[in-house]
């Protein structure tokens, strides 16, 4: 197998917990707890999971917007976690981010043209007039009229702002774009436009995406591979078709069963999970999902499941699949 563009190995990000939340001692919030995955060039890798499971923290840790506690992130042969200062900033030329909220991720005091041109200026990739040309082209490509280039962000709608955010992310011709819930703050009608834009741009520029989402419909439309997170851990990874056809982990099955059905009377029953997500300050021993799992076994309480991978690249961390890990 060829070298992946981005490989994340045993990534851990802990935050110090406030004393009031943690009792005493050196308690931490285990936001991301030992995650490994890789993304190839031109591929879309989706991270899904419910609120608070560590998706966004993972994304920010990869880009070093949050300092990871341990583990390794390799991007095109460079160890991201070891970079400092200038080297890190140079690296950011090739890995950009699209943010969830297009209302607060644009500087209200800069015009759209200045916002999109800034990465070019920062990385000294263009003179001012060249930057202007490229900015106009990028805005055009992202579906914004050049007449609006000198307006401030407040004059735009949410969907248009997200187009600006995407144009900014593409300014330096990055290889990897981390998109943190790129469409969840938008109206449904706008969501599909932005998703299509992202897909078109991926094809045109050969981008790799790490797509963070809680919307399984979005993920199915865009992703090549999918990783399901629960309580800071990756519980299942699979190619997207395989995942929707044959979800293995009980948590993944519950997630998929929660998608509203198109046809009334569709056969598959909804799996309703009981209880709450345990606190990441004090995760349960053994399998993190055992407190809510419908198939819980005695060993789940004490023993963490190993990740088993089959030939199709479908891996799952669950004791149910320990024995028959070689057939799918």
């Amino acid at each position, binding site marked *: 197998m060829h070298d992946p563009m981005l490989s994340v190995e045993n990534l851990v990000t802990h935050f110090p917990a406030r004393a009031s939340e943690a009792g005493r001692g050196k308690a931490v919030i285990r936001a991301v707890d030992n995650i490994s995955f890789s993304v190839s060039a031109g591929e879309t890798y989706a991270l899904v999971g419910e609120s608070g499971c560590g998706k966004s923290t993972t994304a920010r840790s990869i*880009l070093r*917007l949050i300092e990871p506690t341990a583990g390794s992130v390799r991007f095109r042969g460079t160890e991201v976690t070891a970079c400092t200062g200038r080297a890190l*900033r*140079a690296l*950011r*030329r090739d890995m*950009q*981010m699209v*943010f*969830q*909220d297009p209302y*607060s*991720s*644009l*500087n*209200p*005091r*800069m015009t759209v043209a200045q916002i999109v041109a*800034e*990465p070019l200026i*920062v*990385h000294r990739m263009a003179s001012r007039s060249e930057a202007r040309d490229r900015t106009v082209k990028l805005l055009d490509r992202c579906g914004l009229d050049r007449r*609006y280039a000198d*307006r*401030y962000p*407040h*004059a*735009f*709608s949410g969907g*248009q702002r997200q187009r600006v*955010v995407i144009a*900014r992310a593409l300014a330096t011709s990055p290889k990897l774009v981390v998109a943190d819930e790129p469409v969840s703050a938008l109206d449904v009608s706008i969501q599909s436009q932005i998703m299509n834009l992202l897909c078109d741009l991926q094809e045109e520029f050969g981008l790799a995406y790490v797509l963070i989402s809680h919307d399984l419909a979005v993920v199915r439309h865009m992703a090549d591979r999918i990783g399901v997170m629960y309580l800071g851990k990756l519980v299942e990874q699979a190619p997207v078709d395989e995942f929707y056809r044959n979800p293995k982990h009980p948590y993944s099955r519950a997630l998929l069963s929660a998608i509203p059905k198109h046809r009334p009377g569709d056969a598959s029953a909804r799996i309703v999970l009981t209880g709450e997500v345990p606190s990441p300050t004090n995760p349960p021993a053994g399998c993190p999902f055992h407190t809510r799992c419908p198939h819980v076994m005695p060993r789940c309480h004490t023993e963490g499941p190993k990740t088993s991978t089959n030939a199709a690249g479908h891996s799952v961390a669950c004791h149910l699949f320990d024995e028959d890990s070689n057939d799918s």
Partner: protein
Amino acid sequence: MGKIIMPRYLRSVARDPRVIAAHLVLALIVVAALLAPLATEPALRQQLSDSLDPPSLFSATTTRGALLGTDSLGRDLGARLLLAIRVSLTVGALAVGVACLVGTVLGLLTGYFMGWFDNLVMRIVDALLSLPFVVLAIAIVAAIGPGLVNVAMVLGLTGWITFAKLVRGEVLRLRQLPFVEAARGIGCSHLRILFLHIAPQITGIVLVTITLTFGQMIIAEATLSFLGLGIPPPTPTLGGILSGAQDTFFAAWWIVAFPGITLMLIVLSVNIIGDFLRDYFDPQINHLSGRKKRKRPAKNVEVPNRHGIETR
């Protein structure tokens, strides 16, 4: 640059009569201050026989014929007022300049970088806040002596706290916002983020604080002069004239009224202009079509598809 900016500024000013008035009053006061050297001689000449002569403007029984009357030493109040305006404006501007520069820079740095430097500066702020202003002023003036520049320094070195605390609080809030994170993600350096992304967001509150502080500084200078810690006589200051009028207040209303009105006009017009400037520099407020839309409704229709800018 000027060609483009000035008409826009003037058109914005013209939208609000209060702002026009404030600009005119301030311009008048500045012109008065500039003309003040002409009045030095009558302002300092004492003539006790003309003591407390009423203003010739309002009274027929005047002996000296001074337009705004004379003070208890027979000096021309109008001339003294011109000189006092000059001194007060200078002290106010110097003091606010020092306070704003020191306070804003420290506020930006402490709020953005936090850590030990923040702790150090904030403990200094706490220490300064625990001392009453007058005690602090006495200590500093005792050390460096009275005089115009020294008074401005005393005021500036106590006034920066307001700016530092305000700016630090804003920066603490702003640095959490996604667009700052986005700037880091783009690859901006810390200094670029601080001065290009964060600093422009606080110009509004800093401008308003400058105008509010400017008034306070002029009044504080008066306080210091009153206590003998300010600018020593015979140099007239607005505060100095006011405090000197205490004994003769019931006999000579003009010595209190004219400096008081001048002080009020300066502070009021500076505050109005400050409010105006805050709006002027805020791109979210369309100051040309914003406030008085109904007067020119046709203009708004011309531009197709004005996203987000609603025309009520």
